[in-house]
C-alpha cells in the first residue's frame, strides 16, 4: 500500500471576517487579516491518496486523473479568485485556511467516485499551506 501525494498551487485573495462578531471583535480575533479590502496568498495544496500499486501501470494513483479532478473541482474555481466574493461556500462562512481545507476536501470527496471508480485509490488527506509558516491538514475521513 502506498500513500501518494501531489502538490498544486493557486493564487487567491480572502478576508477573515465573522458576521457573528462585532467590528471590534473581528479586528481583535483576525488582526490585519480583517482589513476591509482583503489580501492574498499563493496557496500550496498537497493532496494525498492511498492505494495498492496497479500491476498493469505500476502506479498507485493515476496522476493525470488526479490533475483533471483538481483542475475541475479546485484550481479552476479558486485560482486568481477572491474567495469571499467568488466562491459560494464563503459568502457566509469565513475563508480561514481551516474552512478552506474542509471545502476543498469536501469537493474532492464528492467528485472522487467519478474520477476513481474502483475500490482504490482512496482520498486520504488535504494539506494546505497559506504561507511557508502556516500549514493546515485535514484527514478526508473526517469529512462527510
Amino acid at each position, binding site marked *: 500500500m502506498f500513500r501518494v501525494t501531489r502538490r498544486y498551487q493557486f*493564487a487567491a485573495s480572502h478576508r477573515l471576517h465573522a458576521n457573528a462578531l462585532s467590528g471590534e471583535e473581528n479586528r481583535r480575533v483576525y488582526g490585519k487579516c480583517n482589513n476591509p*479590502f*482583503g*489580501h*492574498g496568498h*499563493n496557496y500550496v495544496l498537497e493532496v494525498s491518496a492511498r492505494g495498492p500499486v496497479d500491476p498493469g501501470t505500476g502506479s498507485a494513483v493515476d496522476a493525470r486523473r488526479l490533475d483533471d479532478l483538481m483542475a475541475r473541482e479546485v484550481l479552476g474555481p479558486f485560482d486568481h479568485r477572491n474567495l469571499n466574493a467568488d466562491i459560494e461556500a464563503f459568502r457566509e462562512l469565513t475563508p480561514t485556511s481551516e474552512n478552506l481545507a474542509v471545502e476543498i476536501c469536501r469537493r474532492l470527496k464528492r467528485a472522487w467516485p467519478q474520477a476513481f471508480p474502483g475500490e482504490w485509490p482512496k482520498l486520504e488527506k488535504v494539506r494546505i499551506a497559506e*504561507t511557508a509558516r502556516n500549514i493546515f491538514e485535514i484527514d478526508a475521513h473526517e469529512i462527510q
Partner: protein
Amino acid sequence: MLITRKVEFSASHVCRNPRWSEEENQRVFGPAANPNGHGHNYMLEVSLSGEPDPVTGMVFDLKEMKDVLHREVVEPFDHRFLNHEAPPFDRVIPTAENVAREIWRRIEPHFGGRLHSVRLYETPELYVDYFGEQACSA
C-alpha cells in the same frame, strides 16, 4: 560586495486597464484581470552594493535596512489590496514590474546610493529584477 535582505508580504491585486473592454483585459492579463482580484505571498529581495566599512566590517547596517523595508514596504503593502489601499496602484496597474519599480522608488533614498537591485517574486516561479533607470546589469 552585495548584501541582500529578504522580506515577505501577502497582498491582493487585480491587473486591469480601466480604459479597455473586458475582452481586451482578459486577452492581455488573463485570470489576473478577474474583477474581484486575487493574491500572492510576495517575496522581496533587496540588494545593496558597497565595500565593508573598515571599522564596522559592514556594507550597511542590517538592522537599519530591515527597518527601512518594514516601514516603506511591509507596513503599507502587507495584508492590503494594492489597487484599493496602496497608492499609486489606484492609477498604476500593480504588475510585478510596477510593484518592483514602486518599491525601488520608496526605498532608494534611504540607502545613500548603495541600492543595487530589487527582486520581487510574485510566486516562487515568477520574479522580476529592477536596477533603477540605468541599463540592466546582473
